[in-house]
């Protein structure tokens, strides 16, 4: 039994396999509409989420399966003090697969170590978010035709941006990759990303606080939101939240085939005016995320 906790739980060939299945789902949705008939997905979201939870639920419904969901974390057993380990053991009795989001870093790993069914990490605090990475990879692949030879700029909250950590890790396995990390000093990329992914794979990278100075170099601009829920101190959040706001003039020097990605939700870090720019791909990411989650559920449930 396999779970997806970290994007590195999937090899490059498994990622290719998932993307191929997702492409086939897009072409032949009817073929997949009953693949998970009789199977149940439990979505355990101990942290607020709209798109990720609905994306998992839509994915399971489109595969003909069922979804078990809890109303919110406040009404859950966790609010009564149940451990993640116990919750995972209990839910394994009801569901065939679990998608978990939890505010604590490492919670999904604890769930996977205790569940008797596959577990998918749908976000563990500010740590990792591998299924968003699946959406990101699929979007880049569909738009660029390859995942090699790209300069990727990550902008905003790189410290707590779990989607950034997972995508940087995933892209560090491809050839000809360069990273540009654009953030305020307080929200720089954590050392575990630099040591585990960048140094090990000899990836060339630049760290800067100035988006404008690097815009012309980028093939992909991955914008992120400064997340209020990651700060213990409201003052720090208010000081840093407007560090980078992408507006049309800032794209003056950008490449014509730049991809602008964002894991969403956005607050104000991308001006609405950018939505009309053909380089803006963040709503396509959402759709690709659903198809990749469908492919992932099929793989983890070992459905042919």
């Amino acid at each position, binding site marked *: 039994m396999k779970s997806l906790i970290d994007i590195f739980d999937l090899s490059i060939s498994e990622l290719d396999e998932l993307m191929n299945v997702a492409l086939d789902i897009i072409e032949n949705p009817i073929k997949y509409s009953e693949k998970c008939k009789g199977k149940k997905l439990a979505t355990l979201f101990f942290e607020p989420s709209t798109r990720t939870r609905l994306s998992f639920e839509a994915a399971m419904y489109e595969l003909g399966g069922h979804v078990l969901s809890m109303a919110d974390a406040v009404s859950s057993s966790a609010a009564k003090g149940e451990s993640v380990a116990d919750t995972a053991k209990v839910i394994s009795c009801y569901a065939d697969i679990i998608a978990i989001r939890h505010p604590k870093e490492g919670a999904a790993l604890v769930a996977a170590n205790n569940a008797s069914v596959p577990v998918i990490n749908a976000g563990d605090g500010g*740590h990792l978010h591998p299924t968003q990475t699946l959406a990101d990879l699929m979007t880049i692949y569909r738009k660029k035709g390859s995942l090699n030879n790209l300069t990727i700029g990550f902008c905003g909250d790189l410290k707590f941006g779990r989607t950034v950590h997972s995508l940087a890790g995933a892209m560090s396995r491809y050839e000809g990759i360069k990273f540009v990390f654009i953030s305020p000093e307080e929200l720089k990329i954590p050392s575990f990303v630099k040591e585990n992914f960048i140094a090990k794979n000899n990836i060339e990278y630049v760290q800067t606080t100035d988006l404008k100075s690097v815009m012309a170099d980028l093939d992909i601009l991955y914008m992120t939101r400064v997340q209020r829920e990651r700060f213990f101190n409201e003052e720090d959040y208010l000081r840093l939240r407007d560090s980078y706001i992408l507006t049309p003039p800032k794209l003056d020097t950008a490449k014509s085939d730049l991809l602008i990605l964002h894991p969403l939700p956005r607050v104000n870090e991308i001006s609405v005016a950018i939505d009309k720019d053909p380089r803006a791909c963040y709503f396509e990411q959402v759709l690709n995320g659903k198809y990749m989650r469908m492919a992932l559920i099929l793989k983890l449930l070992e459905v042919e």
Partner: protein
Amino acid sequence: MHIDSIQNGVVIDHIKAGSAMKLYQLLHLDRLDTSVAMIMNVTSRKMGKKDIIKIDAEIDLDLDVIGYVDPKATINIIRDGELVEKKNLDLPKELKNVIKCKNPRCISITEQELPHIFVLTDKETETYRCKYCEVKGQ
């Protein structure tokens, strides 16, 4: 300064000077019902200065703990006043309940009876990271 040699027991030798106290604490030697001698800042031909711990009983020691604190330390087993066994150490690949994660956002802080596990991620810099949140061990 004169410290008697032991007849039966364990000598942890060649400890990096200043590290014996950390080792004493992590090995919980304060809980032993036997004599323990900590000799610190001793002149050493090889190392310049070193620490030594002598335990007056042959006990099982957690070699991972010693390897984590100082992989260059050596373990000498003494029986009837003779050195009968010498063990060399290496950095352990994993540490279980030796150090604790200090990241307040880590699941190991709140989850009931979850072991604190650290994984060696860089041998050169002797870096250990929490298995759950990947924050550096301190």
